[in-house]
């Protein structure tokens, strides 16, 4: 039993969990911004897949992780333009059009991988960037302050996004547009422009999340994300539309994943039984959804509602 505990809760497992949480966190923070402005984007997983593929491919060509990350963001922004056109200009049903984007990303990423790469080749992964002094703290240092740059960036985005939404004029506009677009519109705030900016930023982050995933794993394959994008959307609800709640959910998923991996390598559970551990966060998310559903005030009132002036 003591073995079980020491293997489970090692510093290394925790650190790996923090790293694995990064793609969830980036994608979920992007989705949070979009949803605060009233737009549900169910296409996150597709955006992540395309971001992951193109950044993998870029790293394969240039051997530069920086280029890979930028390509990931670029792909996300491009798909953001499409999604903004679909939902803001054409005011399409958001739940369904997101599924369209997902299928597009799922098919196209697999197609291009087959055509351009074929046999999987590993790419170089992130370099660690230990934060001076802080990383020297025993245990805590390795858990939180000895990661790659993207982990820090995603963590800094949490207070960053909180400040942006709660303390800036733009954030006020975002919230206004997400709660009562009619009132925002009557005060001269452009609902379309505000939502488009949030969609672009959200998709850019989703593309970056895909890039982070591909570079962290060091390989691309068919359906690499395995529904991480969909989980990220659920994490927004899980976190009650607050970045601090979202980071908690992301860490939960990251830690469960790293723990399962740890158990598997230590031979504590069979491959088959590990399914139940992998299933646990999904069940927990359903419970969280039930709890959140009771607090309807937390949800942006205009979520999924297209805005038509004069209605």
């Amino acid at each position, binding site marked *: 039993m003591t073995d079980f505990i020491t293997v489970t809760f090692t510093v290394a497992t925790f650190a790996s969990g923090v790293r694995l949480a990064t793609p969830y966190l980036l994608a979920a923070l992007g989705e949070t911004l979009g949803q605060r402005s009233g737009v549900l984007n169910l296409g996150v997983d597709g955006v992540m897949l395309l971001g992951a593929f193109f950044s993998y491919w870029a790293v394969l060509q240039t051997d530069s992780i920086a280029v890979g990350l930028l390509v990931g963001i670029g792909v996300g922004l491009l798909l953001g333009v499409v999604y903004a056109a679909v939902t803001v200009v054409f005011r399409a049903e958001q739940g369904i059009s997101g599924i369209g984007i997902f299928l597009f990303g799922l*098919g196209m990423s697999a*197609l291009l991988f087959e055509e351009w790469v074929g046999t999987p080749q590993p790419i170089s992964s992130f370099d660690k960037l230990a934060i001076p002094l802080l990383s020297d703290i025993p245990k805590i240092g390795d858990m939180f302050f000895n990661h790659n740059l993207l982990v820090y960036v995603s963590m800094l985005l949490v207070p960053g996004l909180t400040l942006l939404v709660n303390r800036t004029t733009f954030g006020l506009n975002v919230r206004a547009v997400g709660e009562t677009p009619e009132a925002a519109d009557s005060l001269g705030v452009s609902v379309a422009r505000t939502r488009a900016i949030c969609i672009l930023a959200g998709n850019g982050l989703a593309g970056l999340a895909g890039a982070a995933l591909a570079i962290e794993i060091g390989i691309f394959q068919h359906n690499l994300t395995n529904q991480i994008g969909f989980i990220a959307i659920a994490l927004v609800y899980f976190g009650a539309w607050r970045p601090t709640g979202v980071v908690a959910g992301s860490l939960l998923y990251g830690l469960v994943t790293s723990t399962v991996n740890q158990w598997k390598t230590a031979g504590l559970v069979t491959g088959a039984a590990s399914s139940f551990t992998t299933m646990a966060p999904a069940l927990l998310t359903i419970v969280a959804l039930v709890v959140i559903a009771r607090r309807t005030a937390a949800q942006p009132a205009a979520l999924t509602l297209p805005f038509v002036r004069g209605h």
Partner: protein
Amino acid sequence: MASSTRSRPRRATLARIGGISVGGSAVILALLIGAAMILGLGANPLDGYQELLKGAFGGTEELAESAAKAMPLLFVGTGICVAFRAKVINIGGEGQIIAGGLLSTMTALAVPDLPAIVLIPLVLFMGLVGGAVWGGIPGALKAYLGVNEILSTIMLNLVAVQLFNYLLRAPLMDPRQIELGTRIPQTRRLSENADLPILIEGTRFHLGVVVALLAAAVAWFFLWRTTTGYRVRAVGASAPAARYAGMPVKRMTMLALTISGSLGGLAGACLVFGSETHRLQTEGFATGFTGSAGFNGIVAALFGGLHPLFTIPSSFLFGGLLVGANAMQRAIQIPVDLVIGLNGLIVVFVVSSNTLRERLSRYMSIAGEAAEHDEAGARRVPAADEAGPPEPADASASDGADGPVRTLESEP
């Protein structure tokens, strides 16, 4: 007004043609983009599409194969139609297919010796039950606890996939695989008494296809010819109005998702017992079993105007595309994934064209406006109720918040 009598029927015809042409142009536009991509990848799109068409619809065998591939799309698509009429979005098709496949497989493993006449209906029924449970859970959560069904169905997909992985790797695994140590995650060959009979000799056209066609017809009958179906649609059109009229809104919401799920479950059972290997297997991941039908069924339903009967040809078209894509891959080495990507584009185009259609119909209604004032809608209301989905005209009561359910309505 002299022109009013003439403009009304003309407007209806125009709207109908408009509806079909929007879907058609979405497919054509997607195929054009696909052609550009094939060209960009250094192959000949004309050759590719020719092979695709031949592979999908070129002969009896191909047509039967397309029908078999369309079967799960039709089941899931019909379920999507039912859910959508109650304004519920069911993204859980994948999980529901898996649940149905698992429960029916376990049934066939438990009582393999029952005669075919009993066992086949039994496994189909158990598939239905499995899907109904997997759809009923998010249905109950939405109806009674207000949980967003999009998210709960997505989460239940993940749970189903893990359950599937576990069961196939441990209790349900083929004993031969354990003996040989190869441990391929698949069941033993299931009881022959449960094989869905092939209806056209030498093809893949099995009983499941007919069951799917029946399911679509029954769904249509249910929605537009029964009181409960009427209530489901009323709840979808306006929950407050339905509540005011004394309808059990919550029960209807749950029912719609349960029916939707049970159709997915039937698809799962038919996939198992209509398969060539007659076993439940993964081919690497759970999508190998479902073939992403849980998502592609949404495409088929959307393309069929969210109407069960129109989903039949629509499913056949998309089933054919998926089958033809294999022929295309053999001929010009473009992976089948292209078609999945194009399906996504078709979805995006179809839902985006709603605004366009609204503008089109508004433009056309200017001519008929005077007529509407004269006849005061008296002709419209019964027409909407007797023959299918409410026409866009009577839908303006609540404002444009609920997308395709209303705007994609196809005229029966």
